[in-house]
């Protein structure tokens, strides 16, 4: 277990170093990276000062060391537009993004499980066919388009749910105002539904298909036949014996899922004017605010690696094959 832990930790560090190295090289590919850190109107002296301050006038390996040192200290440069530290901008918007991602993740998983099981146990029926048709459609739509369609129909047509805006829960919670956080929940949920569904539909479809196919596989195993043979009710065969084992591949993709949802967030936040990191990235792209884009990309990657590590460790705890090895 300790050996696994150490090697897994090492692997995560390598990935983080790889990501930052890649980001560093990308900046170098642009020619003189200084120009990415100054606005278009900067004077020659200004550019020279910044070049010196960021160390872009020194040899490449020294530049890399400076780059990494600054990053470890949380210095991702300042925004070209607002002149605020890039990382601060990302961090203040992170809670809204995490709320949305978590909500979508819960939606994608909680709904996928019963749907997948239902589809597997009613295999070949019109219900199964309908669910699978829905699932393949869900995997073929650009998520932001689904968002636009939901805005048009549910939001503007039926006027059931708000199409933009965000009511914070995590933010007051982090600043200690639990009362406000709790009283915000109902309104926050109303605002979460449309963007949440939009992000979740792809993974919901994929998970439902995944659960269905593993469930079908599990249901044909010997131990399921044994369970049936000893006269267990179908409900406990499916619920207690088959279901648990069909969850294994789902747990495996949990970590990847989060990263996948995070990348969907960038576009969907833009569609719903959600004040999170995704919309910040979108705005920064349009203003060519490279330090902010970089800070967002690297902190997302960091979060992703961290979560994957966590999921793997939990998985290792749960799975005796890894734990005992």
């Amino acid at each position, binding site marked *: 277990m300790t050996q696994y832990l150490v090697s897994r930790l090492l*692997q*995560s560090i*390598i*990935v983080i170093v*790889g*990501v930052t190295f*890649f*980001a560093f090289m*990308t*900046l170098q*590919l*642009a020619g003189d990276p200084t120009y*990415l850190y100054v606005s278009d109107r900067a004077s020659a002296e200004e550019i020279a000062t910044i070049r010196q301050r960021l160390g872009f006038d020194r040899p490449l390996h020294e530049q890399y060391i400076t780059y990494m040192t600054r990053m470890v200290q949380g210095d991702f440069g300042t925004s070209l537009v607002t002149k605020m530290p890039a990382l601060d901008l990302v961090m203040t918007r992170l809670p809204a993004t995490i709320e949305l991602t978590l909500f979508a993740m819960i939606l994608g998983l909680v709904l996928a499980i019963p749907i997948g099981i239902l589809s597997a146990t009613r295999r070949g029926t019109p219900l199964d066919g309908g669910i699978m048709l829905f699932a*393949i*459609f869900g*995997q*073929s*739509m*650009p*998520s*932001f*388009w689904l968002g*636009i*369609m939901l*805005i*048009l129909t549910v939001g*503007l047509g039926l006027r059931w749910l708000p199409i933009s805006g965000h009511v914070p829960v995590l933010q007051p919670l982090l600043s200690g105002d639990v009362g406000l956080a709790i009283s915000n929940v109902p309104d926050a949920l109303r605002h979460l539904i449309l963007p949440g569904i939009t992000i979740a539909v792809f993974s919901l479809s994929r998970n439902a298909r*995944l659960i269905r*196919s*593993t469930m079908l*596989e599990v249901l044909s195993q010997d131990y399921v036949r044994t369970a049936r043979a000893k006269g267990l009710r179908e409900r406990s065969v499916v619920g207690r014996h088959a279901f648990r084992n069909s969850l294994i591949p789902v747990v495996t993709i949990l970590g990847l899922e989060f*990263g*996948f949802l*995070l*990348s969907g967030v*960038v*576009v969907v936040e*833009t*569609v719903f004017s959600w004040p999170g990191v995704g919309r910040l*990235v*979108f705005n*920064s*792209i*349009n203003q*060519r605010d*490279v330090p902010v*884009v*970089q800070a967002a*990309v690297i902190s*997302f*990657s960091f979060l*992703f*690696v961290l979560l*994957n590590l966590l999921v793997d460790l939990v998985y290792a705890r749960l799975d005796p094959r890894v734990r005992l090895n």
Partner: protein
Amino acid sequence: MAQQVMESTQVVRLVNGQTFVAPSAWLRARRSLMRARWPLVALFILAAIAFLGVFGPQIAPKDPNRQNIISRLQPPFTEGRSGEVEFWLGTDSLGRDVLSRLIYGARVSLLVGFVAVGIGGVIGTLLGLTAGYFGGIVDHLIMRLADIQLGFPFILLAIMVLVVLGSGVLNLVLVLGIGQWVTYARIARGETISQREKEYVEAAHSVGMSNVRIMFRSILPNILAPLIVIASFNVASVILAEASLSFLGLGVPPTVPTWGGMLADSRDQLLGGSWWLAVYPGVAIMLTVLSLNILGDWLRDFLDPRLRGA
């Protein structure tokens, strides 16, 4: 399994002297397609979209970039002065014909999808084949590189690269292509390892074939089937990624009509009720991706049923 796919029509002579022609892979594929309804429909849809992509300029009723402020935001089936329908699918906020832009957009989506997958597939297969065949340190290096790339969501780095280097068809295709290599490398490696110990490879060694020749002439044809299956799904996901990047303004230049770009433009017109600007490009993307997914499902069952559920 893979060997059967690669073989052409063969004349088989039975012990009793009778001969018959074994059906070629193409023939079997055609029969299987005819039996399955939906993959056939998907194939037709894709063929139609490809046709639009290739012959777009000849088919499109109007110049997709011609602006006409007087007839801006016209709803679908708007009639012109002569009483005939002038804008079948309406016009956008600059008065450009939606139908023509849609037809031109097919070209970019398909081009980006297939070329990016081609780049990723070739790089990934070469690296995976090399890693699996030689093993050892080469294998270790290539696979660690793959682990690193899988360690973070690639679309984020694609955003980073395109912001820094600027967007454009070439950069877009390269970035999306390089983003795909890992999948191919992993599968090619695994398949190569399982083929490496087979007798035909041993035989090739013993008659003095070079490593390169064994890799490309003997092993590669036998590991192609799963790679082709992955590629068909991959084109679909690359098209979706391209639409997302275009939506973010990181796709091709605004003068080139793309489905993702059209959707991005439609966002500002939603409150005004111009639904057609959002509906049609989305349907176009969905039809293309859906067809590719259905065809991919069929191809998997036909070529390599082991991948089912993967």
